[in-house]
């Protein structure tokens, strides 16, 4: 079965991204497919490569990047939500005249249409948020 996952809250601040990560891992482990993980609202903050969590805590962004690499997951950060919150890739930074970017490996920035498309294509859409 094909799952689409929505993550609506930022890392550490809310458990949503942890719950989504655990769900995705379990889905993959039991032979399901995860067609996309869409990060919306503060969820976009999961995708920053500039975070430096305490050493004795889980490394949320790294966990997602590693899982994406291992399973070729499509991790999509909503561009509209990302712009409000200061998440950028190199292209966006250039286009907007910003002098830095902060998106992490394995994440890509795209439009809200990707959320709807995921809803259409996935057999089940599950949202983790607040």
């Amino acid at each position, binding site marked *: 079965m094909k799952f689409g996952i*929505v993550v609506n809250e930022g890392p550490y601040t809310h458990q949503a991204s942890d719950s989504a990560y655990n769900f995705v891992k379990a889905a993959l482990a039991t032979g399901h497919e995860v067609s996309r993980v869409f990060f*919306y*609202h503060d969820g976009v903050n999961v995708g920053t490569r500039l975070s430096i969590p305490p050493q004795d805590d889980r490394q949320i962004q790294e966990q997602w990047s590693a899982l994406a690499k291992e399973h070729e997951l499509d991790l999509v950060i909503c561009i*509209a*939500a990302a712009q409000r919150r200061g998440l950028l890739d190199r292209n966006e930074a250039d286009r907007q005249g910003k002098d830095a970017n902060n998106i992490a490996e394995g994440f890509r920035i795209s*439009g*809200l*249409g990707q*959320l*709807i*498309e995921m*809803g*259409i*294509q996935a057999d089940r*859409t599950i*949202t983790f*948020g607040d």
Partner: protein
Amino acid sequence: MSKVKKFLYVNRKAPYGTIYAQEALEVVLIGAAFDQDVSLAFLDDGVFQLTKGQDTKEAGLKNFSPTFRALGDYEVTKLYVEQESLDERGLTLDDLQDIQYEDEDDDYAEKPSIIVVSRAGMADVMADQDVVLSF
């Protein structure tokens, strides 16, 4: 082309205190381009999103409430509002914006987009969906 899916956007939060209501609307507007069967549900504090006369100037916020009246132009015409949620908050339909759409199958007659349903009716609407996105 794949079959049309039924999408329900569930709004249970008040506007302005948090961004969920506003960013939910942004999803609805983009989603309208995908020719799916779209409904919106307003219950609990979500009914406050639809009140008339929102004036955010002094609070320094962006007033997104006029967007609800534009939904008809995007062929988003089913806004289910729960009667019990209105009652608990002392609201009536008169307190909400008059949101209409032009029915192209009926000589573009203006019709109300807001459909007031009971709690049981809202549960029926929810149980009739393919994709439920909550905000």
